[in-house]
């Protein structure tokens, strides 16, 4: 493919960015489900089901004991995963044994990365086929040490822009972000919302006008209607708690696939 935007961002796109750009440029809205790694004994089956029902990339959470940006649903999934003995290395080893055909982005907290060692875990991610990482407690000022190790390993560090981010800061965050830019839809922790916050459209608009990278909105996007609504401004959505809640309630891989399909159909219908 042509390297669109390489001059703007000053780097060569990796698998994550290239895949998402290609989908976007072909006129599709991007659908990125989130799944907590190791939350039950079927999570790898669920992962394949998500890939098969229209996901463009999948976010896999490496569970942490103190998930401070997560609400009750993902806290519960993280707790279940940890009680099953889930470790970052174990999840990456599991991921290395499957190829679901779409990019995998891990989401975790910085202490797990710091403890494992930047270069070591970046290398493990890369070997496991992981193409990106979201580390929400590493803001722009603290990200360099990790991001440089990730860059060397070919893992894209996705940065976040929040509704509270001052305009002057948005450009700098977009410049350092790789893969896509994660626009935080509302001021709050992860969790389902009955209505889409006004801030979701606002922040998506600011980010889209600051970067050529794909822009996905997450946190507070729970339904097909909300996904369609925010994609009027954004390139795509990350849907986490609404999916994880269904899995916690026992919907299983089929239920997860049905939910993601409903989002896919709605986004494709626009």
């Amino acid at each position: 493919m042509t390297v669109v935007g390489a001059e703007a961002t000053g780097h060569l796109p990796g698998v994550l960015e290239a895949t998402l750009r290609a989908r976007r440029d072909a006129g599709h809205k991007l659908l990125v489900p989130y799944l907590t790694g190791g939350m039950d004994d079927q999570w790898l089956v669920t992962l394949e089901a998500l890939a098969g029902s229209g996901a463009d990339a999948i976010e896999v959470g490496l569970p942490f004991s103190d998930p401070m940006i997560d609400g009750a649903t993902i806290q519960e999934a993280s707790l279940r995963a940890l009680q099953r003995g889930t470790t970052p290395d174990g999840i990456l080893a599991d991921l290395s044994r499957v190829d679901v055909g779409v990019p995998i982005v891990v989401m975790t907290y910085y202490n797990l990365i710091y403890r494992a060692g930047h270069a070591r875990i970046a290398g493990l991610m890369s070997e496991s086929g992981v193409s990106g990482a979201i580390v929400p407690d590493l803001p722009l000022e603290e990200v360099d040490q990790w991001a440089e190790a990730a860059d060397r390993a070919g893992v894209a560090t996705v940065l976040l822009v929040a509704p509270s981010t001052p305009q002057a800061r948005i450009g700098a965050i977009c410049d350092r972000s790789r893969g896509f830019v994660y626009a935080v839809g509302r001021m709050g922790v992860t969790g389902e919302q009955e209505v889409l916050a006004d801030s979701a459209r606002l922040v998506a608009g600011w980010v889209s006008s600051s970067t050529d990278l794909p822009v996905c909105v997450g946190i507070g996007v729970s339904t097909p209607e909300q996904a369609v609504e925010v994609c009027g401004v954004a390139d795509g959505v990350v849907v986490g708690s609404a999916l994880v809640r269904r899995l916690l309630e026992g919907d299983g891989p089929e239920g997860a696939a049905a939910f993601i399909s409903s989002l896919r159909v709605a986004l494709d219908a626009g």
Partner: protein
Amino acid sequence: MTAEPTPASSIMGDPGPTGRFGGFGGRFVPESLVPACMELEVAFRSAWADPAFHTELDGILHHYGGRPTPVTECARLSEELGVRVLLKREDLAHTGSHKINNVIGQSLLARRMGKTRLIAETGAGQHGVATATAAALFGMECVVYMGEVDTRRQELNVFRMELLGAEVRPISSGSRTLKDAVNEALREWVASVGVTHYCLGSVMGPHPYPWMVREFQRVIGEEARDQCRAILDGSDPDVVVACAGGGSNAAGIFAGFADATSSRLVGVEAAGGAALTGGIPGILHGMHSALIQDEAGQILEASSISAGLDYPGIGPEHAHLAELGRAHYVSADDEEVLEAFQLLARTEGIIPALESAHAIAWVAAAAGRSELVRGSTVLVNLSGRGDKDVAQVRDLLRGRA
């Protein structure tokens, strides 16, 4: 990489714009909170450089908070231990602990920033009570997050906070203690940052909190240094000791001695929550510091007799002071603490908080050994009074009778 820390002109100085104490500290929070932390830093720097802010703060701490607190010489305890023991009496400050120093400072700052609502985490309840008190004094709304385990063992403090007009929200996630209360307060702060100030209770969390809270607690050490010199004919105590959970009372008293004296500084952790004596570096609650954690980096649950020290981390400046060798960190176990609690009550007529009893426990254990030789002088920061702990200690002692 982030910029080099601003060279500090003193050991316990300004950690600069990146909030670094050596390699520790920083601001490891989600983007949603970064602007609020930056705004707070700007506001604190401006207030701290403003003589009018100091005048108002000092006035309230004096007329309302009861400062300066005295330094008490312990004749009978000194005789029993063979070392000269002085106590800095933060137990006599309003609300019964040093926590009032910090919350009056932060509440004034919050008001200056136009915030109308305070949220806080609490372990033993002392910081929660202090925050509820300041909220009542300034007419602000107040919500306190407290682990469910702690709401049970510190029931009286829950009622005190409610009397003061605060809402106490019990936290049933994780270990249901202080660490989880901090997680929940941070989550709530993300959702309400426009009108809400997070009144963090210790020298921990993201920049500027570790530095700001130490500066608000510095008054303990500044007062104590002068008071000791008056008692000790111009000289300084050989050793200054304080308990350390997050480490705010220790940071406050150390700040008066780290640069100005050659007194040996000792921080006493709870054996069941010993971040510096038993942990390794990591990142939690916005800071890079010492933490107790497993091989994968999952944070372990602290467990001690004192709710206020049930925390798996410690403020980043303590990690730095330990690395420099300027302060030394040790631990005391629950048994030693119970003994010390009774020892101070019996010999001096002072019932200490279980947290503060950790410092007494170290003095009792170290007296006569090389760390605290016979005839030396030790200043103990008696960070709080023990009324809140009396029922718990009664049950523990009866249980073994």
